[in-house]
């Protein structure tokens, strides 16, 4: 168990790949990670919604993170999903691949660069400098708040 001090100073993130960018999701918000099998499109829904899936008998709304973050589709990826819960509802965040869990402290933390792509900036809560690249920390609640981005887009 981490002591209080390190809880404040460091957090654990589930790392995920979308396109060629590494992202981090706070581990406290991640319920599970699963392989996407059958996904049902929902006509007339917002573009960011990939569809609905049957996750062990529950109907879960899948959010396409590529679209959500403005990462162009390249025909690959979208094979995995991260299960999260918000306000009593389940969501699956569709990603390309899942990586290891990283414990990152404030020593590598940076604020979100001001010149970051608008769509990313709205859902990013920070950036970490890693040895092999940069990790963008995503704010789950802002990810799920589909409306403002739609208006801005």
């Amino acid at each position, binding site marked *: 168990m981490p002591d209080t001090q390190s809880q404040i100073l460091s957090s654990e993130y589930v790392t995920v790949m979308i396109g060629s960018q590494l992202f981090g999701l706070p581990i406290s918000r991640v319920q599970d990670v699963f392989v996407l099998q*059958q996904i*049902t*499109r*929902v*006509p*007339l*829904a*917002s573009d960011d*919604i990939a569809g*609905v*899936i*049957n996750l062990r*008998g529950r*109907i879960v*709304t899948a959010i396409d993170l590529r679209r959500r973050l403005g990462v162009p589709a390249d025909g690959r990826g979208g094979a995995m999903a991260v299960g999260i819960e918000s*306000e009593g*509802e389940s969501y699956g965040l569709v990603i390309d691949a899942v990586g290891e869990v990283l414990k990152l402290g404030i020593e590598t933390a940076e604020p979100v660069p001001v010149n970051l792509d608008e769509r990313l900036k709205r859902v990013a809560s920070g950036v970490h400098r890693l040895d092999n690249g940069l990790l963008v920390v995503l704010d789950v609640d802002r990810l*799920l708040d*589909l409306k403002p981005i739609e208006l801005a887009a």
Partner: protein
Amino acid sequence: MDELLREFLTETHESLDLVDSGLVRFEQEPNNAEILANIFRLVHTIKGTCGFLNLPRLAALAHAAESLMGRFRDGYPVTQDAVSLILTTLDRIKEILDAIETQQTEPAGTDDNLIARLDAMAEAMSQPAAHAGSLVYQVLERPLKPGEATLDELERAFRETPGPAAARPAETAPGRFVQSNDSKIASQSIRVTVETLEHLMTMVSELVLTRNQLMELARRQADTDFKQPLQRLSNVTAELQEGVMKTRMQPIGNAWQKLPRLVRDLSSELGKQIELEMQGAETELDRQILDMIKDPLTHMVRNSADHGIEAPAQRLAAGKPERGTIRLAARHEGGHIIIEVSDDGRGLDTRKIRSKAIALGLAPESELDKMSDAQIQRFIFAAGISTSDTITGISGRGVGMDVVQSNIDQIGGTIDVKSVPGQGTVFTIKIPLTLAIISALIVAADGERFAIPQVAVKELVRVRGDGEHRVERIKDTPVLRHRNKLLPLIFLRKFLRLGDPAEHESGNGFVVVMQIGQESFGILVDRVFHTEEIVVKPLASKLRHIQAFSGNTILGDGAVIMILDPNGVAAAFGSARSAGFSTDKSAESEAQAQTAKKTALLIFRAGSPSPRAVPLSLVTRLEEVDARSIESVGDRHLIQYRGHLMPLICPGECVRVRESGTQPLLVFSDGDRSMALVVDQIVDIVEEEFEIEVSDRRPGILGSAIVKGEATDIVDVGHYLPLAYADWLGSSAPKRIRRHLLLVDDSAFFRNMLVPVLRAAGFSVTTASSGQEAFGLIRGGGAFDLVVTDLQMPDMDGIALAHALRAEPATAKIPMIALSTMPTADMIDRVRRAGFHDFVAKFDRQGLIAAIKEQADPMTSQAA
């Protein structure tokens, strides 16, 4: 919270609601010993339990109220003041209970003043003079149910239970008494938390899904040993499902419990006399739905009391009884529950609603002018409408009926209103029995499957571009000819924007014919699979805004599919949303009369600058042909059409047949003959109620009418038919003696339209514009061989005419044929019973002629 305390709270809340309504009833029927005994039992239980749980404030209040009620039992007159005081006490008890629920202990405070008032009133009643009055001898009028105490026992218990004045703590007798009483009741029924039931329901839903999955697997394998046990499993699952659903059912009376009290309080507050009648309180429905209609019902009753029922003086002046009535009625009908909230008050003020609708910009004035009263009344479901001039504490703020409607919408129900000025208003609510499991038709479009609730599906029609049933277009509107009517169509692919837009309007597939209220429409899908029982799961919040869907579900094969919302699809037609179903017979026929007056017109331009119109139902087909394929013989034009030569007729001098490009045509067919009118342009299709001016003398024009704000000539198709074939009218006329036919219709338009048709069938035709006129003609000695009458007419309608004729021996045997634009099963039944020989849709010319001939032949045989 302490389990015992929790149980006490639930139980007491229920008891108090019963006492509330019991007292209101008792006030009206002071001699009903049974009600009094019930109230006693309940208050007594509350008092006893309070002592047991050491809740002194509650015990003291209950005791004081009980003492006062004891006076009633002793035969003292039941006064309104006394009942009011007891009701106030019950309110205080409820307040304390609410506080206990949050704080788990009795709140601090004193009820001395209230207890003093109760005691004082009880004291005032025990004046010896009154005491000499009658002592009501109590006899229960039914055998005791197990667990019930006799009145004597109750009496004893009542005496033996010490009040707080005795200041004895609760460890003595009362607690034990109450407990033993409880255990007796407990042997009959047990209390189960809603949570447990919900969990059970979820598990059953999962079981149903798994069963479906297994069935799906078994379907794919030709012959397995699993088939039989699987069938058994399926049956057991179905029974289990039904059983669990039953546990969720509750009598609707539970939602009504608070209403008698509400109405009583409103009556005194508003200075009105209002009686609340309740029928069908035992009608059961799913508790989830029950919860959702509670507030709307309360709101509607409140509205009726406040706006509907007039002040006593006003009522007397209007020749009505001083006391107004609000009626609640519930009943099962099919898989639905019908709830009616009606009052005999002043009715809705259509004029006021209309001006409010204009003020709020809900519809332009010109459109409102064309609306019927019933249509205008529907505006009360719009946000912001209130017809009350003053805002009272009770209602009139204009938030209300829109919320009621949206609540009812949410549970897949509909609401309709019908109001007659000076006589009252009826709201009819139709809601499904349960929300959880429905039967659905699985369809596919562009490879995606969707579920359509089976209740709204009427039938399936296979359509193919070259088949018998095919999608036809009027301008860009797709329609299907279906049972002698034109069915508006929607392409599911296009509606849901699925796949390649170029393939959105494929004319091959299946049309799912839907019916919502009076409205029918078709949804064109690629494929239709089987029907499946599906467990409706609510949409995620991110998808809830999509009107097209009402939920989603997991199919047997594990896939998630979306459930189409028929109301949402219907709304996409942009047609006036059908506000609901009318179940009331008279409401139905009124609704029919409404639609009967509406006629779908095809608007086109031909020669003249003003538009022309022809009833859409007379048009067989719209065609666009290559102008070069038109042949001319002298001054006549012909075209090869479906293996025949079809004559083309120009309506009016100035219409020219085109020489190049495409030529739009309106094709009219009768049997195997067709003719086409040459037109310049097809403009639109409108469905409107219109007044036709018949005074026109121009040949080929029936008259003119204002359609969509423009003067439009209504074309007389009958005039052009003989121009195409000189013998068109003569050919089908039997070469026999002419029979005399009476055509009754209040619309000059229809009379003019039908007369040539009937003449063509070999009849000499007399027309009458009303039931009375027809009856007069027949009684005045007009010898008619056949009467063809419209059903919807003011005053004496077709059915009344039939009854009148059947009642007299001289005219009882005249064959009668009914005409209606809206044949429904119910209507057909009524028509049969009225003694009509046949029933024909108004525009079904061929059907009419066939029916007439059928009647004409028996006539000759009878005459012979």
